């Protein structure tokens, strides 16, 4: 069977499962639509959370990012996992005890302020929309690369699938499809990784293979060899190359952790478990399922980089006749050249492709002495490291088909979670909470479905016509969540003294400095040409990149909220009692009735 047919079969089978679940898990009440009836087992919720969290970026892009940033990529590994520690200890159990449906609802109730609730809704919608556009793009790309259909056709198919299970089933339908999607994506990710680790090191576990010796009989450690070949080619040493300064890496990691813990689409998953103690353990299970992919990714990145270099330098790196001959290049290179993710140019016309770092003066001097006229691999897209991995390692076709299904599962599951966060903010916080407090449950459920359908259409439109901010997911979504939502939630639980004025001033202050810093270097509202200063390390304050600034915004939020609260009246007694009550698990059952 040819690859395209096989891919259609595998992807079609997974879609049939998702649709089947949609019919089985329909939502009949608002509690089911918003929180899956609060009956999800903590391990099942952990799995759903893992799929909810691991996006197209985690699945397709992260290993490639690590492959080319080496140690610097640790920022993403630690940042996108360490946030679960904060979530499990500082937020999830207490918000579950609170027992409502949305994140803005907690902020509005705890700070007895519609203004605070609306600020939270705006932050939620901007962060989630930014994030969902990336998923839409991921769906379109996966379809067009693997199934050879138009980007738009792929996007509409993906939207149609999400529409069926998210509109019918709400959180209930999304939860059970996310569990299925987790299974698909984790197999798709780990199977090629196991094969490649076996080929290179003889050890089936990439977590151990990364630290093992090469299977080629030389006895050299894989990372040692990788360090040697990349430095030989003029690139920075893999295991020590940093992402800016150590301070930048510190704050970048902190911003991603705080942002992860503050992202509403992740938090609301913990509203679906029956008890407070389940919310605690469920965060642990979520991280177990996430860690399976996140501890595999560094192996995939390093091994794919090594495989790529081996392919391009079959006769030895930086040797006179060591480079790959154009005519001898493997089929997978030709296939991916057609997609624009790979490109070469034989600049010196010697019929070979020399790949090295031509921004490194020493390497350039060496290259010139051999008659090379610059790096000839003019385009190596990072995403190729995962997408073409099975082909580079010459794995069977069914593995390639599985990677396509896995990429789609990762994008669909995250998109659905984000769309639910958006639609519940619209139907529950804005409609029921602010504009139409008297609507019946049935009307609210219908409003939820309409909001979901509307959110899907908006996301699809923005996926087809991505605005400037779409590429800024890390800066914008994590910056907003870290600087506004996380501190407001944490202080709402851990301080009885922070009041409405403090919370609003804190959120606006944190948000203000973060957005100012991002816009300063990336343009006002990301409009090209409106940057106030070039976006490079010499202009940044203390070398802190805009993506790493969310942590500073969070500090500003905490400081402003505490100072303003001290200067104004303390919260009313019933609010202080509310805080006392969410701090203890007892009574969570009655809150469920809502």
């Amino acid at each position, binding site marked *: 069977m040819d690859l395209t047919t096989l891919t259609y079969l595998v992807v079609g089978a997974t879609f049939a499962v998702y649709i089947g679940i949609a019919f089985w898990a329909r939502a009949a009440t608002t509690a089911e639509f918003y929180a899956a009836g609060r009956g999800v087992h903590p391990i099942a919720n952990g799995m759903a959370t893992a799929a909810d969290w691991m996006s197209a970026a985690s699945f397709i892009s992260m290993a490639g990012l690590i492959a080319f940033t080496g140690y610097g990529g640790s920022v993403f590994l630690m940042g996108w996992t360490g946030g679960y520690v904060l979530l*499990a200890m500082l937020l999830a159990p207490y918000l579950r005890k609170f027992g409502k449906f949305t994140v803005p609802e907690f902020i509005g109730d705890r700070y007895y302020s519609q203004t605070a609730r609306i600020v939270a809704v705006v932050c939620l919608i901007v962060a989630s929309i930014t994030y969902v556009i990336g998923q839409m793009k991921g769906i379109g790309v996966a379809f067009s690369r693997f199934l050879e259909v138009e980007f738009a056709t792929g996007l509409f198919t993906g939207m149609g699938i999400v529409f069926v299970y998210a509109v019918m089933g709400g959180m209930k339908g999304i939860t059970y499809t996310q569990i299925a999607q987790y299974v698909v994506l984790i197999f798709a990710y780990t199977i090629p990784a196991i094969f490649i680790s076996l080929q290179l090191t003889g050890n089936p576990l990439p977590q151990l293979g990364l630290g093992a010796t090469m299977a080629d009989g030389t006895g050299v450690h894989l990372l040692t060899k990788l360090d040697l070949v990349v430095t030989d080619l003029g690139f920075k040493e893999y*295991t020590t190359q940093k992402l800016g300064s150590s301070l930048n*890496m510190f704050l970048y*990691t902190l911003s991603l952790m705080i942002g992860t813990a503050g992202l509403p689409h992740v938090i609301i998953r913990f509203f679906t478990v029956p008890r407070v103690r389940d919310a605690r353990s469920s965060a*642990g299970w979520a991280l177990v399922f996430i860690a399976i992919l996140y501890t595999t990714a560094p192996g995939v990145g390093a091994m794919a980089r090594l495989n790529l270099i081996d392919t391009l330098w079959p006769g030895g790196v930086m040797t006179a006749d060591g480079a790959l001959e154009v005519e001898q290049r493997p089929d997978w290179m030709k296939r991916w050249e057609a997609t624009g993710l790979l490109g070469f140019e034989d600049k010196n016309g010697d019929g070979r492709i020399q790949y090295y770092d031509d921004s490194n003066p020493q390497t350039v001097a060496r290259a010139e002495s051999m008659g090379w006229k610059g790096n000839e691999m003019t385009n190596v897209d990072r995403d190729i490291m995962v997408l073409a991995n099975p082909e580079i390692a010459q794995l069977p076709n069914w593995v390639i088909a599985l990677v396509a299904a896995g990429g789609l599962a990762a994008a669909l599951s995250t998109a659905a979670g984000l769309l639910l966060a958006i639609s519940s903010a619209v139907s529950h916080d804005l409609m029921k909470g602010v504009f139409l407090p008297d609507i019946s449950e049935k009307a609210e459920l219908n409003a939820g479905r309409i909001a979901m359908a509307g959110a899907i259409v908006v996301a699809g439109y923005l996926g087809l016509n991505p605005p400037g901010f779409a590429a800024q997911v890390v800066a914008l979504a994590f910056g907003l969540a870290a600087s506004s939502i996380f501190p407001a939630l944490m202080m709402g639980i851990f301080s009885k003294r922070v009041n409405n004025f403090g919370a609003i001033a804190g959120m606006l202050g944190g948000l203000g400095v973060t957005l100012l810093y991002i816009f300063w270097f990336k343009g006002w509202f990301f409009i090209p040409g409106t940057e106030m200063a070039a976006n490079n390390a010499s202009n940044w304050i203390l070398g802190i990149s805009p993506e790493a600034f969310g942590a500073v915004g969070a500090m500003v939020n905490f400081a402003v909220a505490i100072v303003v609260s001290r200067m104004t009246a303390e919260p009313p007694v019933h609010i202080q009692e509310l805080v006392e009550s969410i701090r203890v698990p007892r009574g969570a059952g009655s809150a469920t009735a809502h």
Partner: protein
Amino acid sequence: MSNGNAYWRANLRLLSICLVIWFVVSYLFGIMLFDVLNTIQIGGYKLGFWFAQQGSIYVFVALIFYYAARMNRYDREHGVEEE
């Protein structure tokens, strides 16, 4: 209410310990002491690199389960567990 306060203090103490470990394995070992720890080699891994790309994640998982187990015990000891 005094019982509630003792429970909350116990929670805060446990939380602080867990967050100190969380900080040490990622920020201290993975970033601030990275170069120092890299002088130690474990198999094919430099230690600082291992903490940054593998070790910190394993410790995060263990921390959450440890915290959850201890809190379940505190819930019962202080009589605030769910009915």
